[in-house]
């Protein structure tokens, strides 16, 4: 079930790791009246946020620094607990079922840069995306490796497989982490500022790849970005946030 067969665009034809497990609600991510705060922080980071993200859609979240965009993603993955309100993700109640949701998700973190002393190679770092699916004493098989190589190629890092990740440029590192997301074939894809280190052309091609993968895998994508122009043509919904609240949905 692992290999991405290559078609004309190089995107695997398989669907995600779990057959469409659409719960009756038809909503992949549901937040209703959710507020949350970071530990030891005086002010809430999110205030009464309600949001519905349907399955197989691409949602953009935008807003100024400190609006609460990253907080929203961390909440969806169960890294933060809601003070009030209800969160359901892929049919699971959060944060109770965090590990189940995390297994089905791929997360590109905003703060991804590694120090130049980091020695794991691109190939190793992307392979780590499969760690949670591998039992003890089951090394990566040929199909896994093929999937890893495919993901690296898809993000345009072919030829850099054996380079230590720390000595890649910022944009190259960002692409490597995106490859790590893709290799997991996630049902839910969360990308925090995926364009922040990319050149204009890179933003276009990566947007295209994200859209392609989403269609092929039938996954649900949430992209947080200040600059939504490269990807807006593929978006089903744009959510605008400010000061911990959702201030607009288009």
């Amino acid at each position, binding site marked *: 079930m692992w290999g991405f067969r290559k078609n004309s665009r190089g995107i695997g034809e398989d669907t995600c790791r779990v057959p469409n497990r659409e719960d009756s609600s038809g909503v992949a991510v549901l937040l209703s009246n959710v507020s949350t705060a970071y530990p030891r922080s005086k002010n809430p980071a999110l205030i009464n946020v309600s949001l519905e993200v349907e399955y197989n859609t691409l949602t953009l979240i935008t807003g100024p620094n400190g609006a609460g965009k990253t907080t929203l993603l961390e909440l969806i993955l169960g*890294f933060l607990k809601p003070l009030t309100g209800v969160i359901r993700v892929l049919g699971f109640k959060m944060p109770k079922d965090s590990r189940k949701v*995390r297994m089905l998700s791929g*997360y590109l973190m905003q703060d991804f840069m590694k120090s130049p002393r980091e*020695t794991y190679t691109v190939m190793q770092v992307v392979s*780590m995306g499969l760690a*949670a699916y*591998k039992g003890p004493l089951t090394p990566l098989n040929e199909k896994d490796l093929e999937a890893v190589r495919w993901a690296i190629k898809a993000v345009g890092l072919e030829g850099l497989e054996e380079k230590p990740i720390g000595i890649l440029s910022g944009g190259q590192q960002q692409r490597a982490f995106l490859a790590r997301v893709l290799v997991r074939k996630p049902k839910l894809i969360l990308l925090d500022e995926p364009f922040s280190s990319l050149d204009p052309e890179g933003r276009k091609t990566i947007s295209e790849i994200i859209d392609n993968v989403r269609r092929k895998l039938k996954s649900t994508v949430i992209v947080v970005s200040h600059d939504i122009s490269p990807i807006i043509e593929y978006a089903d919904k744009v959510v605008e946030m400010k000061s911990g609240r959702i201030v607009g949905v288009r």
Partner: protein
Amino acid sequence: MRRLGLLTLCFTVAHAALAGASVSIIASTPPEETAFAFSITAALLVELLYRRLGVEREVISMCTFSFSSAIAMIAVYMAPSVTLTSETASLILWGSVLAVTPAKIVLLVFLVVSLAVYVLSFKLEIDSLLFDVKLAEAEGVNVTLHATILILLTAMAISIILKLTGGFLVFSLLFNPVVAVERLSYRRQPLLGALVGGLSGLLGVVVSYFFDTPVGATISMMASIMLILGVTSSSLLEYHRTRRMKTYVST
């Protein structure tokens, strides 16, 4: 270990083991077992407080560390002077090759083997954890499980090595090799680290035998020399690389 932010935790575990061993002098309990019990308690305490209260591991580690050092010191002072000058006490504090019994070697080998089996069978998960804990956790890797196993194995190893190198020096043996190797090359750190560690251990034992110096201190000195060698040779290599680059650019 270093990358997991467990450096301070290991520090704590090592010193808790020392505290345990020191307490065993007064309480006249078996030193290894007491050391092990103390180090496990310290490690669990740190994890528990971290999970339940969200206090940073570093903060709790440092607290526990100071606390255990204090216990160790108090225990040493409280011990009757007769006991303190005795074989056991100096053994725990400064170490001795004589402490190596066949049983202990078997135990150590068993530990190394189980560590190897564990690392080999969960290689991808452990790599993922060492690379980026947050990301590993976000991807559903069982961080708690693996952190616990790593801490348990460390605690056991420290409790056993304690008698060989002595409490004050166990730490330099654990970390100098890793740092030395890290300066020198990119890859294969764990393996090379263990190799360098083993080498300094061997050298230390030999040197201490011939010069009749305390074995723990000698091993640590060897490890430090390795570290210095590693750092200087890496700077030398870097110097040559730059020179070559300069000639390359200017032609």
